[in-house]
């Protein structure tokens, strides 16, 4: 039996909050293991901080999402949103499970190709696609989602030059009853810009209009908005068929499904109030079934959801650097992972759990990162047991956006490991070091003496 860990004593006034089902005590289970691998062992082998990805969770979540849709709609295709997490290993898991790729830059496009994705199964989104990127996408017969008219004109020009008819869709933005309405991307439906773009595509004769795309926003807490979006998109598709006799092959509803994280400012925890795949699937497929397509001609439904598929599979392991009292008297714990690595802590109150056993006594704690910056706060206030230097913390639901939006700032970016479905631990991104940076830098000759 291991020695019981020492906790320094604490005196505080008794606060009787809302009693739980079992009284006032709220026992929490320490996160000693991730997928049966001891956290301590992970840190020992790969250092701290450390990102951990669970393949098992990815596959389970993906199957859950797929099941929710395929038991409601006959033809569903997921396209892995690269920007959410484009670690090659992660992408390859999604591709193995049947996902296409959804990319928003030339860099991501290249990455998808290198991950073995057939050009025909790459969806090219985003407002910035260079002439070279577009040329490549046309040659590979990828699905190009046009964002603005200048891109449209460039495509007309390119398809003429190359003598290839690219397969395109337009991105449509619309009012789905949510605030803020995203209108930065694509063509607005209500003011007629979408039709303008469609007319131009069809009349150019240079492109094949294959589908329609929309992405109504991010972390959408109302499944009904997707129902509205699906209806509007389906109606537009039917109108296109009536006007041009073109049967669109797919409707791409984009992403934006909420994960289990709790948004900052949310009164209740995310898992309790955020819609799940079943809710989104019900809203979207009901709308499509009721939109006027016959059962036989229902278009392919493409989904680019990223966050909801990967968030739960990602963990951040961090180590306590030290504790202090703030001016208010409240406790602050400094850990070795900052907002430069956990970008999403600006958005969510991440669930945080110590990785070693603890007693039932806790205190509201502010968790700071190691940066010498005032904004480096992981959690403003979280009820945690007394932690001491060297203790480990596991931060949950960090799979989405962190491993792509992280910054090398003040500290180096840590390693990422993948726990395979079989339970083996695999390093999928090496820890950065000074050489990583130095290799990129050039010191002018006159300064290097």
């Amino acid at each position: 039996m291991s020695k019981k860990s020492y906790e320094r004593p604490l005196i505080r006034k008794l606060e009787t909050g809302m009693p739980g089902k079992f009284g006032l005590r709220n026992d929490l289970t320490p996160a000693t293991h991730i997928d049966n691998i001891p956290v301590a062992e992970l840190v020992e082998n790969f250092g701290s901080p450390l990102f951990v990805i669970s393949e098992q969770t990815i596959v389970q979540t993906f199957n859950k999402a797929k099941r929710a849709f395929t038991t409601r709609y006959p033809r569903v295709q997921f396209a892995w949103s690269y920007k959410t997490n484009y670690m090659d290993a992660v992408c390859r898991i999604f591709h193995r499970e049947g996902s296409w790729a959804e990319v928003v830059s030339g860099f991501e496009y290249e990455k998808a190709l290198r991950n073995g994705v057939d050009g025909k199964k790459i969806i090219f989104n985003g407002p910035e696609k260079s002439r070279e990127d577009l040329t490549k996408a046309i040659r590979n017969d990828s699905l190009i989602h046009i964002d603005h008219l200048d891109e449209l004109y460039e495509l007309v020009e390119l398809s003429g030059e190359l003598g290839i008819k690219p397969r395109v869709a337009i991105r449509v933005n619309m009012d789905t009853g949510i605030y803020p309405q995203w209108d930065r991307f694509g063509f607005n439906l209500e003011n007629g810009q979408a039709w303008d773009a469609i007319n131009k595509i069809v009349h150019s004769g240079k492109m094949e209009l294959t589908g329609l795309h929309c992405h109504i926003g991010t972390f959408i807490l109302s499944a009904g908005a997707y129902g509205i979006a699906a209806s509007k998109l389906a109606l537009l598709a039917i109108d296109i068929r009536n006007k041009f006799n073109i049967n669109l092959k797919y409707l791409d509803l984009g992403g934006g499904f909420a994960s289990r994280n709790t948004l900052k400012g949310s009164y209740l925890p995310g898992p309790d109030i955020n819609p799940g795949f079943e809710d989104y699937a019900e809203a979207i497929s009901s709308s499509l079934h009721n939109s006027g397509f016959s059962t036989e001609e229902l278009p392919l439904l493409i989904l680019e959801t990223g966050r909801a598929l990967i968030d739960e599979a990602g963990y951040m392991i961090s180590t306590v650097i030290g504790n202090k009292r703030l001016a208010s008297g409240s406790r602050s714990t400094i850990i070795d992972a900052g907002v430069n690595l956990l970008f999403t802590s600006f958005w969510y109150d991440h669930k945080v759990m110590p990785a070693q056993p603890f007693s039932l006594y806790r205190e509201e704690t502010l968790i700071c990162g190691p940066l010498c910056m005032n904004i480096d706060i992981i959690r403003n206030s979280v009820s945690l047991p007394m932690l001491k230097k060297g203790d480990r913390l596991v931060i949950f639901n960090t799979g989405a956006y962190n491993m792509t939006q992280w910054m090398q700032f003040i500290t180096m970016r840590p390693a990422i490991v993948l726990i395979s479905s079989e339970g083996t631990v695999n390093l999928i991104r090496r820890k950065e070091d000074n050489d990583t940076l130095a290799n990129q830098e050039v010191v002018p000759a006159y300064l290097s003496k």
Partner: protein
Amino acid sequence: MLKNLKTIPLDLYNSLLNSYSMVFFSRSHVFAGIMILVSFFDPVAGLSGIVAVLSANLAAYFIGLNRLNILSGMYAFNALLVGLGTGVYFQWSAELFILLVFSSLLTVFLSVFFEGMIGKYNLPFLTLPFLISFWLVMLAARRYTGLDISERGIFTYNEVYDWGGQPLLTAYNWFNELRLPMGLSTYFKSLSAIFFQYHLLPGILIAIGLMFYSRIAFILSLLGFYSAYLYYQFIGANFDELNYSFIGFNFILTAIAVGGYFIIPSKYSFLWIIFLTPVISILISSSTEFLITFQLSTYSLPFNIIVLLFLYLLRFRQGRKNKLDLVVFQEYSPEKNLYSQHNSRTRFRDFFYLPFGLPFLGEWQVTQGHRGEFTHKEDWQHAWDFEVADEKGKTYSGDGNSLSDFYSYNKPVLACADGWIEEIASQVEDNQPGDINIRENWGNTIIIKHLDGLYSKVSHLKKESICVEKGAWVKKGDKLALCGNSGRSPKPHIHFQIQSTPYIGSTTLDYPLGRYIKHESGRYSFQSWEKPQKGDILSNIEKVGSISRAFHFIPGQHLIFKVAEEGKADTFQEWVVETDIYNYTYLNCQETGSKAYFRSEQDLHYFTAFSGDRSSLLYSFYLTAYKVALGFYPNLQIKDEFPLHIMNPGPWKILQDFVAPFYLFIRSEYSLDYISMNDELDRSGITLRTKVEQLTMSSVKMISEGELFIGDGQIDSFSVNRKGRKITARQVKNRDEKIEEGKS
């Protein structure tokens, strides 16, 4: 009209030969030739037979009876027997000729009469017209003084010498003195008696012809005869009946008719031949007693009575129908009947069944099957319960305390086939998990009427989720409601059953599903006309547009292929999609006249038959695209079998024929693999690989290998490797390329 006249000689020839072979239920012209030869052992009888057949066929033709029936010999084979019989009794004369012509006319009348009278009971008229006609002619002839009674058979040696001189006489004597075992010689003589002969040689020739026509019929003739032979010895009956009159053949004909022609040959049909022997004997003895009053012989009366009684009896069976299978589509050969039936038993069950789909989208698991352990019992045993399960087999997430934890809950429930909404119940509250409602045990329910007497029912639907109305027409796959937990349902699931009455609570009908995909740990298997078992994970076949359009052949459509073969100049082949008056569709090859019959169902294309040139491209296509499911599942394999007699399996076939009623050791297997799909958005660019193998015992012989390439809604090309030839055919729009080649 002129065109009609031109076909008359050929029609006459065909109908003549068929009339002879029809006596033994055959269509073999070789066999017919042997029988004509045998009939001329008595030249007058032989000539009379020909006169009778021609008279009967011409009469039928000018009266305007069905041409195909005339061609098949159906109206003339009775007249043939009358003619042969009459010819045996009289000397050749103009009077005999007239008698033959008009007795044939009478026989045609009787044939049509019996066709109408007993045909409506779906029974054949056999040789009843012959019996009546011949008895009448025999009775009448006693008063016809112009006819000379034949003296042949009295001064046999003189006649034989007259016909063929000393050599024939020597041969005749040799045969007569041939010491064959009693049983064997009686067998041959009984065979010859069918043609009113009573000699060894004709019998031997007929036996050879019979063996040539059908090995099974030959064995049946032996079985029929020898069971009679043994029975007569056992019972101590008058053995002369077999030996010295024309009635031993009753056993032989009955054996062929019951054992293999009207009934699929099997060990059961063989057993019945033995059981029927004593009955036939009773009929022979009694009818002989009876007819002796009129000085008439019983001829084939016992055969007619027993075969008709037995066939009639079989139609009243309520069970054990597969023990003695009646032949539905007559192919005029016990072998063909057997092989076709064996093949169609697995292939063409849908001719009788309505193809029901599954009432859901995606993959669901059978959590209670037929004769289930919970509620599918007794009168309600033929039902299925379906639930959605995850990869670990769990049907809910979380703790399963609320309905929304269950994957099945709130999922669309679909119409399993086209039909009218017959009945709806929609106001039953959903139970909390674990609770059941025994009072309204079916819960919210929809009944669809598909045909008269064929209904389907889905139960335990979510309250007020039903989105169809009573009386509405729904199509297969339309959404009906959502899966709920109402009625006797402790957790959300779909209860699905087929029933023959329109009520909620009706008992179930044991009915198979149409075609579906079974999922086994990431692998797919194609199922047709199966009843899924508990634990099976199923989904409907999701139709892929490009494949289904490629195999959607529209009558009138022309398919032109440019055929490339190594070492040969390219050729063009053109097929036309045609439909006959029975609504059978087929591809008709313009170059060879070959026909490949096919059926296109919602989710399946398959060929049913091929006739014509086996070296044609169409035959290669028939082998390659024998059965194609119109969906795409990677690595899915579809298997099927060809009927044995289609594939010409070589010398082993003869041995196989002999033992076929008991054991089939040759099989021709077809397999189709779904290899790849180039474009998953269009779902086109599909490669399928097929293989035809012949399995004899343990040896496997490759008959053909092929590949099909399906582009966007059409068969782009296919290649076949058969008999060492590799042919590649590419579909082209027209033959322009040919013209260009001609120019150069």
